């Protein structure tokens, strides 16, 4: 059976060529230079590395730099979006895993999985229909005075829900990513043995107490895994602010990188920023890698 090991070679060669080398290209450009016409010149040899752009990027991201505000804003948006997603996702996952039964449970699971099959952009697009000034959602929210609530907190400014509003971006992130949180949460909660909860009840715990002292701790690992799973793409997101807001006022770090790399003369800086972002996310990525490998082992 050992002889089939070579089957892995084409796939590995592909991944090496188009994933590893691609990542090294970011390193080479980030540590590279730029021609007179602003085309990046990658420095493939580590001995040739030019730290200029990396230092510039670092300078931008530190407090007081050009991109410090954007970075802070990204942390704020992602933090709020994660909190909201958890607040919405956990009860739903809990209900479906521990209280739904039989046919209802299957229907619920199918409906929970459905958003996976719909493109993220299509789902955001659906909201641009609804938050348009004549859209159903905008009218409903205004009628319920929810707009005044958001205005009071500073997340909404003026009348146009789609015009540079932080709340639209945050809610867009939540809407986009919460389905991807619910399924890992469901898996984690479903795994908990009912007998443990029954034992707690038998020993005198109230339903809330049993939840607090049995379910919550046991679901912590899975919850953390789910949070990391959606935090990673949120940090690189640039299309949600572009679609839901379109204004530089709500730009996230993904927008900064996107503008630098695709926009024009700042590709080396963009590469350097990407490297720094990857470094920042490395902790999350390694944690998630561990979760994946652990799940494969079970």
């Amino acid at each position, binding site marked *: *059976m050992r002889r089939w090991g070579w089957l892995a070679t084409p796939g590995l060669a592909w991944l090496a060529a*188009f994933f590893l080398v691609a990542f090294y290209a970011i390193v080479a450009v980030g540590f590279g230079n730029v021609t007179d016409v602003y085309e990046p010149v990658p420095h493939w040899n580590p001995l040739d590395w030019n730290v200029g752009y990396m230092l510039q990027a670092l300078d931008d991201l530190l407090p007081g730099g050009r991109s410090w505000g954007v970075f802070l804003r990204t942390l704020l948006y992602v933090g709020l979006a994660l909190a909201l997603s958890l607040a919405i996702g956990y009860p739903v996952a809990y209900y479906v895993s521990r209280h739904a039964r039989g046919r209802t449970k299957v229907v619920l*699971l199918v409906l929970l999985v459905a958003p996976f099959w719909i493109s993220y952009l299509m789902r955001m697009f659906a909201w641009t229909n609804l938050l348009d000034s004549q859209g159903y*959602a905008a009218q409903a929210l205004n009628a319920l005075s929810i707009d005044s609530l958001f205005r009071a907190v500073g997340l909404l400014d003026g009348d146009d829900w789609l015009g540079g509003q932080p709340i639209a971006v945050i809610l867009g992130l939540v809407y986009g990513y*919460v389905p991807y949180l619910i399924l890992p949460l469901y898996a984690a909660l479903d795994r908990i043995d009912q007998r443990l909860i029954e034992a707690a009840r038998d020993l005198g715990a109230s339903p809330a107490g049993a939840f607090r002292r049995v379910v919550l701790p046991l679901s912590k690992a899975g919850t953390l895994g789910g949070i990391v799973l959606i935090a990673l793409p949120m940090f690189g997101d640039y299309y949600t602010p572009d679609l839901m807001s379109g204004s530089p006022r709500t730009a996230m770090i993904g927008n900064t990188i996107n503008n630098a790399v695709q926009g024009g003369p700042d590709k080396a800086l963009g590469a350097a920023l990407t490297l720094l972002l990857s470094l920042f996310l490395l902790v999350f990525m390694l944690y998630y890698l561990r979760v994946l490998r652990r799940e494969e082992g079970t």
Partner: protein
Amino acid sequence: MTKLAPAPPMAPPTPPARRRLRRPSGLALVTWVYIAWSLVPVLLAIRFAFNEGRSRTSGQGFSLRWFWTDPTLSVRNDPTLWSALEHSLVLAGLAMLIATPLGTALAIGLQRWRGRGSGVTNILTLLPLVTPELVFAVGLFLLFTSLFGFIGLGTTAQVIGHVTFSISWVVLIVRGRLVMIGRDVEEAAADLGAPPWHVMRRVLLPLLAPAIAAATLSVFALSIDDFVVAQYMASGADTTTVPMRIYASARAAPTPALNALVTIMLALTLLALVLAWLAYKRLSRGQEAGLTTFAAGGTK
């Protein structure tokens, strides 16, 4: 986004006899309200695709004009929309053709690899899954505009990008099934005198076929719905995909033709799901196969 495709492995459900009798209706309400909030916007977007007027914000009659009857603005007759549709399908088709065999071979090879480096290669295979899509797209973009400039940007680059992140998903799905199958059947066949190639072709691959079907479907869905990689690898108007077209037009006062395009894509995805489900059922005759196994990506 980091590639987030269909469900992770799910544990088997607890038997009903052990459940609590109390039914919290509050949680049930929250759940159903969530489901409505999650799906109604898309259903409304589909509804507006059938509008007779130009409104994308409210229902206006019923007509198929935005699909094909309108002479200049419908999906069928507007070249930007139609070519986006065609291009998305071409990319998905090519990605399926390339990623599925590569990924399946990789999964089998990794399973059998006992020598040095198997841990590292395992990690390499999982890395695309944990890497944020923007980082990957930037890397490919910079690569294809420098060292791999002979490939350059365009359809080939887009296919390469899609295949690269799809391979990891194929490996994840196929490997789960491989672990479930175990070695016994293969070893039995070998003991009975079958040469290795026969064991592969007539024992292992048929047993893996359901997972391969599920993996192929995943590649299709990932490719169809991808935005970031396709955009970074694009080289002009004729390499635009449907998500790119949505991104470009959504804020520019589009007609319901864009809604119609979305509806068509959803219908195609549904069709792919149904076909894959049928293939899966047929290929897993005699094996353990149900809706939950399929939804969990052919693993359990």
